[in-house]
């Protein structure tokens, strides 16, 4: 104990700020706090709705602040000695409150309910489950890893040519990807920050999720639902390849899978029939 507490505290804070300078070089505040880059064709819908809600909220919040701070300033007891006696139950008062109530409802809630319903129906719930030209992936979540299964050449899941990857999802750019997902043990949630979607993987149920990509590269996949002590380590990688690279990858992996997959080992055959509920 030859260093004092304060010295140690300063050391810790310095350590913390070293970490900061190490990982984030020059980045403006706005860059820091903006959401991850959108690599999907559906992400802009969420962006748009978020922005709309923000603008209208700011309007109403500004009114609230004007009322709160303005009245606090104008009617402070030193400026305004005698309060005006009213119960606020005259017709005009009721009209004003009702107007504000309905105003908020019509300007924000109605609009976002409608748009959100439309987006869900037309895009997020519009699963391309049985489309011919869709990349089908089955996902098994477990403590604390993601298993991704591509069907392979025969198009059937749970066969010897399935490509199974641990913590690594590979998809071609521009194609729709359809995911069916379940969990082995506890509830997990597949969260792809760059695509702005997530869905819970629940044991005993099959969750559905679809997305497409507009950009090649390496991105992150996370688990968003608390799933145990090592929840934070449940990270996977999303690799978006160009079509040629993807074809090359899937062919190689398939050959590899056929050569190495042990069809007798039931533990490896966790896949299920496509579309079962």
């Amino acid at each position, binding site marked *: 104990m030859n260093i004092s507490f304060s010295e140690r505290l300063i050391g810790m804070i310095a350590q913390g700020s070293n970490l900061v300078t190490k990982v984030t070089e020059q980045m403006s505040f706005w860059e820091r706090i903006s959401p991850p880059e959108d690599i999907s064709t559906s992400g802009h819908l969420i962006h748009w709705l978020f922005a709309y809600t923000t603008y209208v909220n700011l309007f109403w919040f500004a009114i609230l602040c004007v009322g709160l701070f303005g009245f606090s300033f104008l009617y402070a007891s030193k400026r305004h000695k005698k309060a005006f006696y009213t119960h*606020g139950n005259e017709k005009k008062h009721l009209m004003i409150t009702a107007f504000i109530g309905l105003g908020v409802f019509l300007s924000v809630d109605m609009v976002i309910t409608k748009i959100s319903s439309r987006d869900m129906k037309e895009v997020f719930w519009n699963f391309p489950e049985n489309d011919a030209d869709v990349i089908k992936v089955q996902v098994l979540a477990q403590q604390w890893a993601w298993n991704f299964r591509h069907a392979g050449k025969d198009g059937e899941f749970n066969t010897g040519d399935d490509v199974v990857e641990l913590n690594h999802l590979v998809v071609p750019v521009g194609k729709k990807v359809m995911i069916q997902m379940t969990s082995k043990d*506890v509830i997990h949630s597949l969260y792809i920050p760059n695509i702005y979607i997530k869905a819970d993987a629940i044991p005993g149920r099959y969750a559905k999720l679809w997305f497409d990509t507009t950009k090649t590269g390496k991105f992150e996949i996370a688990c968003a639902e608390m799933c145990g002590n090592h929840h934070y380590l449940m990270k996977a990688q999303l690799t978006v390849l160009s079509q040629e690279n993807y074809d090359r990858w899937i062919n190689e992996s398939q050959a590899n899978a056929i050569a190495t997959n042990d069809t007798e080992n039931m533990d490896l055959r966790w896949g299920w029939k496509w579309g079962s509920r």
Partner: protein
Amino acid sequence: MAFVEQHIHDAPTSFWSKYLFSFDHKVIGKQFLWFGIFWLLMGGLMALLIRWTLAYPGVPFPIIGHLLFPHSDGVVPPDTYAMLFTMHGTIMIFFAITPILIGAFGNFCIPLLIGARDMIFPTLNMLSFWFSMASGVVLLASLALPLGAAAGGWTSYPTLSTNLGQPGAGQTMWLISLFLFGVSSTMGAVNYITTVITLRAPGMDYFKMPLTVWGLFLTSILNAIFVPVLGAGLLLLTFDRVFGTTFFLAGAAATSGKGDPVLFQHVFWIFGHPEVYILILPAWGITSDLLSFFSRKPAFGYKMTALSLTTITVLSTVVYGHHMYTTQMSPLLTQSFMTLTMLISIPSAIFFANWLGTLWKGSIRFTSPMLFSLGVVFVFGLGGLTGLYLASTSIDLYLHDTYFVVGHFHYTMAASVLLGGFAGIYFWMPKMFGRMMDERLAKIHFWCTMIPLNGIFTGMMVVGYAGMHRRLYNPFIYEFLQRLIPINIFITMSAIAMGLAQFIFLYNFFKTIFGKNIPAASSNPWEVGTLEWELPSPAPHYNFKEIPVVKSGPHEFGNPNLKGDRDFQYQTEELVKV
């Protein structure tokens, strides 16, 4: 009129019957207050440990880190981290906010504000506190278990909370503790509801009750109806853990029989969403009253406010599904829950407008209770408006389980309830303990709480919008979150500042109660007109020697028809002779 005159018994004299096993609602209210403040400090310390880990993962917690975690060199270990956020949520909701807002103010204020001598079932009232105490002891004991306390999140979703994810006894003790707590809450609720229905003083109809009583009354109704729902869910989960039933077990672990983990989520949120309003309604009530008291004018649109609160209470029971969008319920169900949730903004906007209307053309006195009430208006405005993002299903796809949610519910549940609670404590302190708290310290406390508080929770929403998800031990193993390190540090620093600011309150609080040479408060230091201020401070044994007759509403400031030298009046001219 349903009015019951209560008998006056002699005041208890021994220490046991006076301070421990007391039947007096005022003593029980104070017991709840101490209980709540103890747990508030525990929960607050846990919050700081969590925040420290999020900003400086792997760095020892300053000063007391080595004492708390000797085996990991002062660093919070991952399993302890999971336990900490589970306990933080549980403690803050069930053992801090509920005892302070509902236990303390409910017990203390309801009889005084409606002109009754005590609660209608004093024994039940005492039992309610001791059940709370028992549940607190069980929870505290679970922290000392070798495998640690429950660590499955305060929502305790199965299958993580079954033996599969939580093998230790901690989760079972958590369930038992919450069940006991539920029993206590239900007892309290039965008592409050019956008291309000039967013990209102002659002349006090429902629309003459102070809005505080309205808030507490509606809260109690929700408690009586929905806490048993949680109780049933907790029992079923306990059976799963102890007797091997399989209600919630599924997947590979369900070898002999299958259940459905989502069933628990339904049961939990049928209770859980009303619970949010259970916590906030008393704070709304207190705020509505205090805004009127210190603007020196009647509550604007009193009836509309009361009806809005009632509407919200009713709506709150049918919107719980918005917590479960990502479990992929049927589209029809999801859309219905979204639409119903959006409807809540109408009554909310109405009582917000009424709050502002109360300030309009008032003669505002910026006392400490008033500052805290204005604070509630500000933070609940932010909290309410950010709820709109989460209510819409498509934005929720992105924001679900991120820090945006954490920021939102802390604004609504933590920030506004905390500020409302402080407002209440500062306001009723003279009536509770017979002394005024130091106004200057109280105002310093307000600003030192308010500014960091917004730093914390706005910061949380910012990192949430940037994509940071919840309950991570070390968020920065994700590359896309590393840019958020400075903001997380800012949030943590704000949290520490807010934590330190609470020492101002504690100093003020203890000094007022136990300090020497503190002058006694007058009977009506705030110059307001509700019934309790007609009594000497502190309120005497059995409150009202003679039951008052109520002539007007609680906020008749400046009513030209009222005579007398004070500009408020809430009756006292005529008293019933018994």
